[in-house]
């Protein structure tokens, strides 16, 4: 089974990396870029784990709930 986890900085929290990349894109001939937010993408290969446990781990280990949100997709 494959699990995909996307961890993104919360909307209200500053994402300095996203800002720097947005500015770089502007200089790169893409002034149309309004905003960039950068998070993590994790591909997890797992054999028969239950979803509740995966959610728990997303919350406790893979993301930092104080500043990040996560999304878990199972395939």
């Amino acid at each position, binding site marked *: 089974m494959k699990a995909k986890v996307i961890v993104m900085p919360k909307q*209200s*929290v*500053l994402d*300095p990396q996203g*800002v720097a990349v947005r*500015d770089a894109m502007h200089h790169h001939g893409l002034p149309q870029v309004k905003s960039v937010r950068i998070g993590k993408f994790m591909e997890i290969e797992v054999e028969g784990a239950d979803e509740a446990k995966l959610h728990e781990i997303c919350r406790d280990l893979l993301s930092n709930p*104080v*500043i990040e949100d996560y999304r878990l997709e199972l395939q």
Partner: protein
Amino acid sequence: MTNEPAITPDLIAKHGITPDEYERIKSILGREPNFTELGIFSVMWSEHCSYKNSKPELRKFPTDGPGVLVKAGEENAGVIDIGDGWAIAFKMESHNHPSAIEPFQGAATGVGGIIRDIFTMGARPVFSLNSLRFGEICGDSAGVKTNRRLFAGVVAGIAHYGNCIGIPTIGGEIYFDESYEGNPLVNVFCLGVLRHEQIARGAAKGIGNPVFYVGAETGRDGLAGAAFASRELTEESKQDRPAVQVGDPFKEKLLLEACLELLETGCVAGIQDMGAAGLTCSTCETASRGGTGVEIDLAKVPKRETSMTPYEIMLSESQERMLIIVKKGHEQTVRDIFEKWDLPYAEVGVVKDDGMMRVLDGGKVAAEIPASKLADDAPIYVRDAKPKSPAKPLQDWPEADSHSALLQLLLHPTIASKNWVYRQYDHMVRAGTCVLPGSDAAVFLVREANKILAATSDCNALYCALDPREGAKIAVAEAARNLACSGAVPLAVTDNLNFGNPHKPENFWQLRECVEGLAEGCRVFNTPVTGGNVSLYNENPGGAIDPTPTVGMVGLIENEKQITTQFFKDAGDAIILLGGFGSEMGATQYLKIVHGKKEGTPPRIDFDRERALHDSLRSLIRSGLVKSAHDCSEGGLAVALAECCISREKPIGAEIDFGATDLRLDQLLFNESQSRIVISVSKTNAAAAVALCEWRGIPARRIGTVGGRELQLRANGTSLLWPVDDLHRAWYSAIRNCMTE
């Protein structure tokens, strides 16, 4: 302003404002405050900004001296002369509560804040220190795991910010003790260098001068963080925490360079960083210092988020922002420089002559408060103080096997090598670090001034818990001793007072005792206090933290030949103990770590003796006799000797013979009596060194010889032996091993 909440007693209480304080606000304004004004008062009158609970105590510090160019409290940081037209600005600041919530960002933004305090003075920041306290980190319990997470996060956060901005973190201290569980202490120190004529002021001078906002856009970060830092952390407060501030060291690096470049042009009339209480604090303080008024329009403030209210903008604690008052006619210079550095900037207001802090929102008045009343007329409280019953003197204690006790001490994270930490810090950038972390004090060459500085931070909070006054005195003495051991003469002090809730009389008493102890110590060593920080409400469900008045001390080394390190150098060198064997066992790490007891009376400090010891050591160093010097602190003589052997890249052994003493072996090896230093000198100089000290009234005694692959201690007819490679391995990897458990 239509949908602003009504001012109810409940709302007032939520802002941490008492009914009396509310009356005071009304009399200042001559009317009821609106919502924005209420928010402004609440942050400015929080402990964090107003020191309302600690100010009368802080007045006890000596702040003056021949070298003091800017005194504590006048500006963001004090400034001290170091000769030849050069000066230094330095200060320490805490970020305890933010780090408890989000260790990485909490610590990172702490570093960012103290760096801004320094370059606001016109100084180029050249190095940092950090003083940290956590719960225990070795073991398997959930609590210990949390402590490890906090510790790892804080260290990574400090590394992230300091490394990226390119200011070396060259020293510090770390203690692990259960009293900090859930409420770690993160105190960060930064020092900057400037020419006398470059001192910048945080005052809004010159009626009609434009006010610029520069740096990062304002978002809803850390709304009212200062108020947050001024109350106890509870599960609830952790829930309703403000949006966490995220540090951007890259932006701060640009801000630092742009501000220094702008200051160089001479067109700045006043400059102030936006730290705690952000735009609120910077506008009313500059106006108050300048004896002027400041009017700003929030519509012009660069913002990151849409539809922010005046309340939110004024209370935001977004990082990496500054307020600059520019001499009229020089606006273009500001624009050019900030454009060069690709930084946001905006002309947001003007200096007025009416003494008001006036906040407009697109032309409409959103807040209007007499600036100096807001900044300087916060209520001041003298809290009740109730002495804690003094610690019982130690009568008797069990004797442990001294051989394994030394190992146990060296393995404890409080005493073990901190390389796991400082390897993560770039401690060599700026090519000035002459003595790297791992010796008594860090030594830094300030190239532009051709001056050599030494710096250290110290505080044994176990002593302070058992006797706050004596503990605080020892913190100053130990800092001065660490500087003496590195060959330096102390110049000045900054401090960070970390205590529990001041409404509890015993906590307030501890604060007062510690302040008086620090003040006494600073007088003895002629080290005025240049500034510092107070962090109260450090509590966890088990009670207040151990009182922790951290001392940061800076000294000057006359000549590069006098730079001294703590490790033994060459086989055959004579080892000399200055200051005698000591005997005091109360509050020692031996009792705590080996016997699990935090008890007894801490050692006493005799300042005359201590000062004489430093003077003698410095004169030995000046005469070129000393090859190494290391003081006895946590763990006593045995730990000091072991550190002399193992705290360098390649350990070297030593053979020590104490002869017959009238002390029990564990007492001889692990007592923490003060005013003692282990030095090594070449064999031929041994007799001269001993004679010189004795002539000055300092007990000095040759106790052994450097060399071999073992540390051997003989006393009272017994002999103990440890291979130095084993000691080194244990001590060097202890923290790493705990962290990878």
